[in-house]
């Protein structure tokens, strides 16, 4: 690999050097002028996370349109400055340094995915910037001691399955599943979701019979599926992103494995999912932090506005990006400032103390930036996802045991 790494390194060095030089000699190139609020973001628009990255971009753009149509922030027009970090943790650090020091943005929004949120949050922390992020849900994000970070979604990864865990543990012992198989991608978010549920079930005395971890580049799931099928576990939990969930589910079906409950994170809420699996999705469970059908006042507006802008309804990534905008806007309007410097600390202090109404419901945070709500649990019923837990928000009855897939 060193053959083609070298030129890239050289190029990167040159680029960073020029950024430094430019920063040194110009104060005029960036910065929100008096009548605009400039917001800096770095997003993975190319590379591994390009699909969700573009979703987050659409979410931010729809928020900017909405806020400007409504008179802007503090009466100033809002403008986005988006850089592409190519899904690389090195690039994302350079990007946020450039956004804050060179472009002199007034506010920053977070990037996509835990792996990019942690390094970029560190940069924001060094510059004392408020850092609200739409996509770093893994516990690792909150264990770094960041003081300016807030996660703009209902719950951190470990709590995604809370409603499902409560449901399983509330069953009388005779009906309760006994054995659990877990397969999780070697990724902090994917593992967080699966292990949150696994640990709660294990604590309650259920037997974890398979506990597999696979690297993100795994394409063949025959072996993992064979282990799970052989164990005959009552519950299968997948700590998954997208292609791994689809491949694993098909591999399990190919082996004729029929669990009582099957829960997979992320993938089932994706519109491509039922196209890939066909009509064999029946009964698959997934946690979701967002649904277009939620009746929060700003959500109705958001769905309408977004659909008009992009020709289709928003998904979770788009909604979390929009939420990020709402959270920052609430703080800015309440405190009455949007610029670098001591204003940022006042924004942080305000968010610590207050609750914000968003498209994913009212949000508040603990002292590490963890949101204090839980995810809804959805299930495929008749080849469509319906909310089944918690009971008071349910659109359909939870099917347990699930029908054969």
């Amino acid at each position: 690999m060193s053959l083609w790494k070298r030129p890239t390194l050289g190029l990167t060095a040159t680029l960073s050097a020029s950024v430094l030089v430019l920063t040194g000699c110009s104060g005029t190139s960036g910065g929100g002028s008096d009548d605009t609020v400039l917001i800096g973001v770095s997003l993975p628009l190319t590379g591994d996370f390009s699909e969700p990255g573009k979703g987050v971009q659409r979410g931010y753009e729809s928020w900017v349109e909405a806020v400007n149509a409504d008179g802007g922030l503090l009466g100033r027009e809002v403008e986005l400055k988006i850089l592409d970090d190519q899904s690389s943790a090195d690039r994302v650090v350079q990007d946020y340094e450039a956004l804050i020091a060179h472009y002199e943005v007034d506010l920053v929004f977070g990037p996509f995915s835990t792996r990019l949120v942690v390094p970029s949050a560190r940069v924001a922390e060094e510059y004392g910037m408020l850092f609200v992020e739409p996509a770093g849900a893994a516990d690792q994000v909150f264990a770094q001691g960041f003081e300016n970070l807030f996660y703009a979604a209902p719950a951190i990864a470990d709590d995604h399955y809370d409603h499902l865990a409560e449901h399983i543990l509330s069953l009388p012992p005779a009906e309760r599943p006994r054995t659990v198989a877990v397969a999780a991608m070697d990724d902090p978010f994917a593992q967080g979701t699966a292990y949150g549920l696994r640990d709660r079930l294990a604590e309650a005395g259920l037997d974890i019979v398979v506990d597999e971890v696979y690297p993100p580049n795994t394409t063949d799931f025959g072996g993992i599926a064979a282990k799970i099928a052989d164990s005959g576990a009552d519950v299968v939990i997948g700590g998954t992103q997208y292609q791994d969930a689809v491949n694993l589910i098909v591999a399990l079906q190919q082996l004729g494995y029929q669990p009582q409950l099957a829960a997979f994170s992320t993938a089932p809420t994706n519109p491509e999912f039922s196209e890939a699996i066909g009509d064999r999705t029946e009964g698959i469970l997934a946690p979701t932090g967002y649904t277009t059908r939620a009746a929060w006042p700003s959500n109705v507006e958001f769905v309408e506005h977004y659909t008009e802008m992009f020709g289709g309804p928003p998904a979770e990534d788009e909604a979390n990006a929009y939420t990020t905008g709402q959270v920052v806007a609430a703080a800015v309007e309440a405190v009455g400032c949007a610029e670098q410097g001591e204003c940022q600390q006042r924004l942080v202090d305000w968010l610590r103390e207050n609750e914000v109404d968003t498209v994913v419901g009212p949000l508040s945070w603990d002292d590490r930036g963890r949101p204090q709500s839980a995810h809804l649990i959805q299930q495929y019923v008749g080849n469509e996802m319906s909310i089944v837990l918690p009971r008071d928000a349910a659109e359909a009855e939870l099917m347990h045991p699930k029908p054969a897939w």
Partner: protein
Amino acid sequence: MSGSLLFQSLVLGVLLGGLYALLAAGLTLYFGVMRVVMIAHSAFLILAAYLAWYFNDQTGWDPLLSLFVTVPLFFAAGVGMQRLLIARLRPATLTMMSVLLTFAVALLIEGMIGLIWSGTQRRIQLPYSGSNVEFFGASIAVVKLVAFVLAGASLGLLYLLLTKSRFGRALRATIQHKEAAQLVGIKTDRVAGLGFGLGLATAAVGGTALALDATIYPSLHWHWVGPLMAIIVVGGLGSVPGTAIAAMVLGIGQSLLQVEFGTTWAQTLFYIALFVTLMVRPQGFFGGRLAQRF
């Protein structure tokens, strides 16, 4: 670990090994004939997979039928690529420069797929996608079986072509000693072009077989570059049967290791095998005495 799980894993390993053999067959040909390290082979595999998916998506017919289009198309593209690009590289630095050239081709294909079909992950949805047949207590997925049969048939054809036909003899002569082949009147340039075309034609078949049971996306090909390279080095560069044996050994090994040690360690088998081969037997384990030393 139960006996039935072990047997199931063995069956899965054999199926996987067959697929690996088909995917790697073209790579060993390029290197054997022309000393070309073809980084873009996996990109062509994914391109063929996309074409199979697109064909199925548009017509609703079985993706295997797309082979009637993609195999001739890829053969022509291979001949063209060799004559127009590879043949222009300086012989002295051919191996090294072919890495750069085909790396660029791989990026080009990846970008093109993303441009045309976007980065959305795709999967062919067939009535028999999740079906299986019983085999002494183990389940064999129908799609995996079809891919395996496809691999066996095309590798068998390739083997017959290389050993029985006049062209095959010319090709093998070119692999073994280019100058000597020229002395006995073989037009090695032409043979090289056709050999390259043949390699890409196997990519068309391999990509289609892969598409039957995989979720595909534009950057997927990078995951295949390493394992396929390891297979052809272990098998002996330039030897199709050697590649097939190495693919089978590594496929079964990966599947069995997975049971005991998990996926992460099972995947490192390829690189361990690569290191051991380079240290102990650089000409590969199954390539015979004429195989090229890396």
